[in-house]
């Protein structure tokens, strides 16, 4: 129910949005996962996506960097633009994926050394200079709050790190190609609260330089970090707006209120 006293949404920033999604639809072999959603993500902002399992959050991220094309049976319609350019019309999908960093829910340490894990993306892009590469690896590991723990064993296997360390390694790898947009898909699922808070601090800092799309199951995490939040349900947007409004006592939708306050049913 829409309460008549809902405050008008605050005026959006004037500069054009970083990401524009228009009428995005996605189905896997006839089964609809995303049912026509449209939203904007502002530049240098943290945009949170909340919603239960199967609501289309992860699929949405896959559309952003076009890895959805690699999923058998996936069919997508609608447009996604980044800086006003349609991602489907970009000349190189590999450049798109370098511009959109992606952190998966479960940490994936590649079966390579810690150093090679982070250096993988630059090398895949033809980056060869050893000194610059070393500097870049250090910078990314520092940004991901992992450097101090691994600086003495950069040449041991990344897969031997603990879960929380591997997750930060994954973030370091996502930063290694210097993305403009960083997508995190439930990054805190496998790590402890202390590490989560450390990474959240990192994200607040990264926000200065990049746009962050944060899919999260922890609604409080969205509240802490995001200025705008979108609540997805069954492939549809229930509500999208300033985080303050979604988490207020009077969001636009009753469903939102119930979900963020944990009274679902």
């Amino acid at each position, binding site marked *: 129910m829409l309460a008549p006293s809902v405050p008008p949404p605050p005026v959006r920033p004037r500069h054009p949005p970083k990401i524009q999604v228009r009428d995005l639809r996605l189905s896997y072999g006839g089964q609809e996962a995303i049912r026509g959603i449209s939203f904007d993500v502002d530049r240098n902002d943290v945009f949170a996506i909340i919603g239960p399992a199967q609501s289309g959050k992860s699929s949405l991220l896959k559309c952003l960097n076009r890895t959805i094309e*690699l999923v058998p*049976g996936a069919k997508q319609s609608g447009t996604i633009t980044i800086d006003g350019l349609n991602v489907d019309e970009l000349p190189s999908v590999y450049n798109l994926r370098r511009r959109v960093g992606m952190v998966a829910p479960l940490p*994936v340490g*590649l079966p390579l050394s810690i150093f090679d894990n982070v250096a993988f993306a630059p090398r*895949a892009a033809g980056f060869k200079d050893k000194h610059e590469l070393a500097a870049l690896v250090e910078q990314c590991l520092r940004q991901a709050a992992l450097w101090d723990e691994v600086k003495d064993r950069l040449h041991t296997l990344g897969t031997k790190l603990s879960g929380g360390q591997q997750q930060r390694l*994954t973030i370091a790898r996502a930063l290694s*190609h210097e993305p403009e947009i960083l997508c995190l898909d439930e990054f805190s699922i496998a790590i402890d609260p202390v590490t989560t808070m450390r990474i959240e601090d990192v994200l607040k800092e990264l926000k200065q330089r990049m746009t962050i799309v944060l899919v999260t199951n922890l609604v409080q995490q969205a509240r802490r970090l995001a200025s705008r939040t979108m609540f997805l349900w069954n492939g549809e947007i229930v509500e999208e707006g300033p985080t303050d409004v979604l988490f207020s006592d009077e969001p636009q939708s009753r469903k939102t209120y119930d979900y963020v306050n944990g009274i679902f049913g």
Partner: protein
Amino acid sequence: MATTFGETPFIRKKRRDEAIVRVVLGLMALAMVVPLLLIVGYLVERAWPLLSLDFVFTNPTHGMREGGVWSALLGTLYLVSVSLLIAAPVGVLAAVYLNEYAKKSWLTRIINLAVVNLAGVPSIVHALFGLGAFVLFAGMGRSILAASLTLAIMTLPVIIASTKEALAAVPLSFREACWNVGATRWQTIRGIVLPNSISGILTGVILQVSRAAGETAPIMFTGAVFFKRIEEGNPFAYSLSDQCMALSMHLFTITTQVTDAPKALPYATAVVLLGSVLLVNACAILLRLRLRARKKW
């Protein structure tokens, strides 16, 4: 409850079952070793009077009643290595395509179906195909090349299947992580997938050595002869267009055609065949152990 940590009949039954199962399973595993030991022991015992290095490095003489197996051994080495040189790259690359690139379509389904069915074709049918396709149609004549190609066709589907299995054992999440940072499929395959499946791939390939070495039918019509004299001790005594002898065929010949051969001769030949195959397998196991020590997750 008093019985929580006590010995109940159910707990005694569980412990007894566990002991029985362990013994039964262990015996079954042990049973695998027995035939191998018996085969090897029996062969070596029968072959003992003839076994020597001379036997390995001299040609058969006196209508194959005396001498060694040199020309047959070298022929088998030629056939096996040439067929693997053809089948291994083709098979591995085809499997990489099928597992990493091919989308689900009617074409890939047909290819996969063909691979499975090709693996089930009896070797004598391969022989007839080789005779028709390579010896007659392609005009290679009966030669090491034609016989090796026939063996290659025979081993290809198995190499493809085992390679696909090895590739599929590499978790999808590794590939996704690579794609997410803008790596191409090939960069992903070269950087992550192949290094982590190479031990499985090699195992599959090398297992086909024993098969190629042991088959008689496919080479009988396509390149193997009953008898051929070659220069002893020269490993380059055959050329690709030559016909050759082969250990498997030689064994067949001296057991069925040469009735008055010394009793130990077939056994000694079998020991050489088995020994060379086991030698290759041992190398494969060592290689696999080394590669697996580097396994990374």
